[in-house]
Every structure is written in C-alpha cells, then in structure tokens.
C-alpha cells in the first residue's frame, strides 16, 4: 500500500452505508450437515460461535442485483468516477461471465465510471478498498467533486466448500456499498475517516487448506494482530482503544470476539455483534454491515468513534477508524 494507512489524507468522508441481503436464509446447521459435520461439531457453531442463519440467495435472486441495489442506494442518485468492487472469492460464477463490469456500471447508472476489482486479500477487501479510495482522492489533480463507490460482497452459496472455513465459520450472500468523498467535498458525509491500519502474515497463505494445527495458530495470531492494529490505528487518530465508542467487527464467530475482549480488556458491549446470529459472516462486508445496523437502530451519536475491523484468511487484518459526523437518519 505504500504510505501507512492513516497518513495519506486523513479527512475523506464516507456516506451512509447501504447493505442488501437476499430474501432467503439457510440455517448454518443445515449447511454444515450437508458438508458432513457431525451433530456434535455443529453444536459448537451454534452454541459458542453464535451462528444460526446465513443469507442465501433465493431461487431467481441474483448476486449482481444485490450489488447493484446496494450501490444505487449508496450513490443516492448521484454519480461516481470510480467503482471499486471488493471481493473475497477470486472466482465467482456471476463475475467471470463476460461483461460483468459493463453490466454493473450500467446497473449502477454510472456507465462512464472506471471499474476495478479489489481482491486476493480475502475478507479485508472492502476496508482495503476504502484505503484505495483515499489514495484516489490524494492523487495529483484530484477534484473536490470526485466520488468513489466502494462495493463489497460475495456469493457464498455458490459452493459449500467455498463458504465454510473449517471449525471457524460459514459465509453467506450479501452486498454492501459506501461512497468515499474527497476532502473539502461539498457533500455531507455521515462518517469522517480518522485513521487506519493493516497487517499481513503470509504464514497462513494456505487458507482453506490449512490443517487444524495451522487453523489454531491462525486464530491465536489473529487475536494478537487485531489488538495490535487496533491500537496502532487508534493511536494514529490520537486516540486510545478505550476512547473508541464502538467496534464494528468481522462477524466470523462470537468465540473470536469473546476471546479478543478477554485478551485485550475491551468491554463486550462495545462490540456490535447484533447481526451475528441472524446474518453471520458475509465475507468482506461484515464491519460495514455492523456499522449500517448500528446506525439504523439508532445506536450511533454525533462524535462517536467507530473502529471497523476485518480479518481475512491468509492472514490479513485491516482496521478503519471513523467518526460519526452527520445527523441520525
């Protein structure tokens, strides 16, 4: 990424987040049963990981429509110069069908925008795309009216083998979008970017092919990385972790955040896990969907500082710290 996150141009704004879930849901238990998990193993997911349902496209529903729906809502009738599509799965059936970028741009109503994919970093892709958008706004010749639409979401239900991280989580179908405004934009943003942080540890590059032993080391390493990157990102904003009002988490499992809160001394009620049982993990959009839900349910107040956290197999950790600046919807 070059310059460390949080040092490039620290005053971009973010619009309200838009999230689209499919009509359908499937029980996590059923997905796991189909994959051959025993009843005993499935109880671990339900009781400890807190995973009950996973969003699943209903017959006739299309992932592209979720992405377009989320994107159009975030754009709110305005255009975009660049669309960044952040995804975790490298190959998705709908996205490799010829003309994907064109269909998306036309569907979003921004036929003249540039379209790029942000991938190969697994579930940190959407938060990383926010950083890429900041770089775009920091380029020479950037204008105050430039707009970058960050889109995220994957179709987990395409293949069970791609949606299950053994012993860890089950991922679903969902899309999220947010517009990143430049500094000095005339548009009113809902959130002000304060800082960011990231880390990568390629010891865990085998991802879904990791052994149980590697998965255990990965989980332990991620706990430490999240604590470290969160501390660093908060520090870049002149804050301590205790100054953060909310943590918008990756929603892989309640077990991870229980362990994190114990290890890092963070109060559990500051971690917004409300969506976890009913929506679960949806690749790279979890932190954005947690922010969306917290805003929608009236939890956020002007001035609240929120840390959005994504954890990606590989391993990657990405943190974005924002401040709530707009009025409640």
């Amino acid at each position, binding site marked *: 990424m070059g310059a460390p996150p949080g040092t490039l141009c620290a005053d971009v704004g973010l619009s309200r987040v838009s999230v689209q879930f499919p009509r359908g849901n499937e029980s996590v238990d059923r997905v796991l049963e189909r994959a051959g998990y025993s009843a*005993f193993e499935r*109880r*671990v997911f339900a*009781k*400890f990981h*807190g995973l009950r349902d996973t969003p699943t496209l209903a017959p006739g529903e299309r992932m592209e429509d979720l992405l377009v729906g989320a994107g159009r809502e975030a754009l709110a009738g305005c255009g975009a110069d660049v669309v960044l599509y952040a995804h975790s799965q490298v190959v998705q059936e709908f996205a490799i069908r010829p003309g994907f970028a064109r269909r998306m741009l036309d569907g979003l109503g921004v036929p003249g925008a540039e379209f790029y994919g942000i991938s190969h970093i697994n579930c940190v892709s959407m938060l990383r795309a926010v950083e890429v958008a900041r770089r775009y706004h920091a380029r020479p010749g950037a204008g105050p009216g430039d707009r970058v639409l960050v889109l995220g979401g994957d179709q987990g239900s395409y293949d069970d083998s791609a949606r299950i991280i053994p*012993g860890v989580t089950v991922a679903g179908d969902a899309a999220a979008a947010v517009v990143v405004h430049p500094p000095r934009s005339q548009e009113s943003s809902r959130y002000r970017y304060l800082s960011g942080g990231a880390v990568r540890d390629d010891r865990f590059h085998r991802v879904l092919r990791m052994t*149980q032993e590697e*998965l*255990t080391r990965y*989980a*332990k390493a991620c706990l430490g990385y999240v604590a470290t990157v969160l501390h660093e990102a908060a520090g870049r904003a002149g804050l301590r972790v205790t100054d953060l009002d909310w943590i918008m988490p990756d929603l892989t499992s*309640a*077990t991870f955040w*229980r*362990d994190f809160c*114990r290890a890092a001394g963070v109060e*559990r009620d500051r971690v917004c896990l409300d969506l976890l049982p009913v929506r679960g993990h949806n690749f790279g959009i979890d932190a954005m969907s947690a922010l969306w839900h917290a805003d929608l349910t009236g939890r956020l107040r002007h001035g609240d500082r929120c840390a959005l956290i994504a954890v990606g197999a590989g391993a990657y950790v990405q943190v974005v710290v924002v401040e709530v600046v707009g009025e409640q919807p």
Partner: protein
Amino acid sequence: MERTGIIEHIRQSLTVGLGREVTDLHETTLLYEDLGLESIGTLELLLQLEDTLGIEVDPEDLEMEVFRTVGSLADYVTGCLVETGAV
C-alpha cells in the same frame, strides 16, 4: 457428586477435546501447557461435559482462568452442578 467423580468426567471428556486418551490427570495439571488443549478442543470438551453431567455452560460466563488447570475447571463444573441442583 464427589470431586474425584468430577475429575474423572473431565478426564473422559478430554478424550473428546484432545482426540486421544488421557491417563495421568491431577488437580494441578495445566490444560493448555501440559495437555496441549487448543481452542476448538476446549469447546468440544465443554459440550462433552454438558452431555455427560447435564450441566449448562453459558459461553458469556467463561473466563480464561477456568481453563488454567484441571482443578480450576473442576471448580467451574462444580458451580454449574450447584446451579442445576445436582450438588
């Protein structure tokens, strides 16, 4: 239930959590360091204890200290048994 009975239940349940037989177990045995118990194994151990002892584990109440030694886990199990009225 006697303390020795609880520890025997823990020994048997550890077979599930560790995926191997455990023979030599004491109050001071360290679950992670001495036995090599890992996170997923810990969750499976707790489910096994629920099944064999009829206790209800609340994930929100679990502190790391519970899993320090066999004795600390036995204390936790005893507390759960008291709640169920079995002790």
